[in-house]
């Protein structure tokens, strides 16, 4: 089992401002447009992170929620 590199403790400097900006990004968008915007943002942030293990662990964390009831 590889070490946990993904940091999941609270690190957002401005939670409410971040949330508001992200929600604003989706204002007035259709579902399709929102999907595209989220995909782009994901790629931009993923590139900033770069570390392959961190990215895979993030995907695994989300996958365990993705099909849960």
């Amino acid at each position, binding site marked *: 089992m590889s070490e946990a590199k993904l940091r999941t403790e609270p690190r957002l400097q401005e939670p409410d401002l971040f949330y508001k900006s992200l929600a604003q990004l989706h204002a007035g968008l259709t579902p399709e447009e929102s999907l*595209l915007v989220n995909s*782009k943002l994901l790629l931009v942030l993923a590139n900033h992170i770069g570390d392959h293990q961190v990215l895979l662990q993030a995907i695994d964390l989300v996958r365990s929620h993705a099909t849960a009831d």
Partner: protein
Amino acid sequence: MQRTYQYETFPFRPSPELLRGEVVRHPVIVVGAGPVGLTAANDLVRQGIPVVLLDEDDKVSLGSRAICFAKRSLEIFDRLGCVEPMRRKGITWNVGRVFFRDQEVYRFNLLPEEGHAHPAFINLQQYYLEEYLIQPLRDHPLADLRWRNRLVGLEPGEDHVHLTVETPAGVYETEAEWLIAADGARSTTRKLLGLDYKGRLFQEKFLITDVVMKTEDFPTERWFWFDPPFNPGYSALLHRQADNVWRIDMQLGRHADVELEQRPERVLPRIRAMLGEEIDFELEWISIYSFHSRRMDRFLHGRVIFVGDAAHIVSPFGARGANSGIQDVDNLIWKLKLVMEGKAGPELLESFNFERTRAAAENAFHTETSTEFISPDTPGQLALRNAVLELAREHEFARPLINSGRLSTATVVPDSPLNTPDQDPFAGGPIPGGPATDAPLAHGEESTFLLKQLGYTFNGILFVDRPEDLSPTLLADLQALAAQDVPIRTLVIAAQPTARTEIQGLPLFHDVAGLARERYAAPAGAFYLTRPDQHVCARWHRFQRARVEKARDRAACLAR
């Protein structure tokens, strides 16, 4: 049938078995005279092994099929002595460009350096390739080409295979010590043995066309479009072939009506939209394909060995179909020969299975990833793919994600049981388990290339500053190795100019551009050991006879 190519019909001749009613046991029978079966037949006869080649048809490949032949394939054909006509007729290319809508978003150069005998790719219609592979076999005393011979029955035995073959003049029985199945995706051999071929079908339909046109509007580069104006929401691919024939592929979607979309009246406007009004063209070939990605668990089943599409099939993005089959043959024939001669143990053939199932898994991974990018399955995957393309227009970081095909390269197997792991540090150079690298050399007055000196036996590559640096003991050792039962033929590469072409019977070359030493990251005195398929199996900073012999024994699975 194509108008730009004249098909020869090969004559049917009743086999000796048919005429005399005797069952003969041949050393090797190859089933299937496509690119891979023909490569196998050429390699077998070049290594002195008689071959019977069965094909149910009597002409070369019909239609627009394989086109892009990779550098490693060209090196293999060079070793087999049949690359010249391919290079003359084929269209050379190294650069690929990817467009999104109306803008170029990515460009790659598959061979950005000089000093290799062969380019990254040539484009050549499969029917020409087959013609050039048949030519050396036609009157070859060891080659028996049997056209309109269809395999209909198979009985595998402990030390041979029994075959039933149907021909226009009746059915006959025959036998082979070894059967090489090169009979394609719908392999009769595989079906007769009830063997698996597991994988998936991609639902996406692709229109495949050959178009004859005289134009200088497109350079000899691979061009791929995502969402072009002439095929909105889908992709297109353009390749130049010989005879002013251009291959144009267009993605049609999962739900395209195959019967309708094949009609010329549907195809012509698509091509016209792509080429514009000015270019004159003629449609030479139309077909519609969906692609599979499948492979067998094992390619070796007793005396039956599977190669090419019979063993593994992939979608064509990246040209990993025929090219990997040709590499299968390169890997196999020298091993089969040593086993047939009783010199190598059965583990050597098992290493073919190990190395080439590894290659097939790698090829499946790359081609599946490309196909998923070109034809995303779900809305989420489509959004991800389009996000990459849109970001790529302005942002460099997204460009490496664009996947219109990861083009075929030679497979490297670092953990092959045939390798001797590095004990000395090398800062580069071809690693054990991968093919040797090419470099320009001078042999006396003549210019040549390194790879042309390797093959059919184990080879040593010894790097020196001057031939005078070689001690008598070292030379005696090298000569002894060249005389052994499974010989190692060493070539000496000198950094300093020399007019000599040999030193005590060993071929001597000058590393005229310094590229051999550089590409092999070789200090003076370094020794590389390569297999009969030009793959590196060991390397050291200094030659020592015992360890070289040990590495050769390991790579050939010799009984000791």
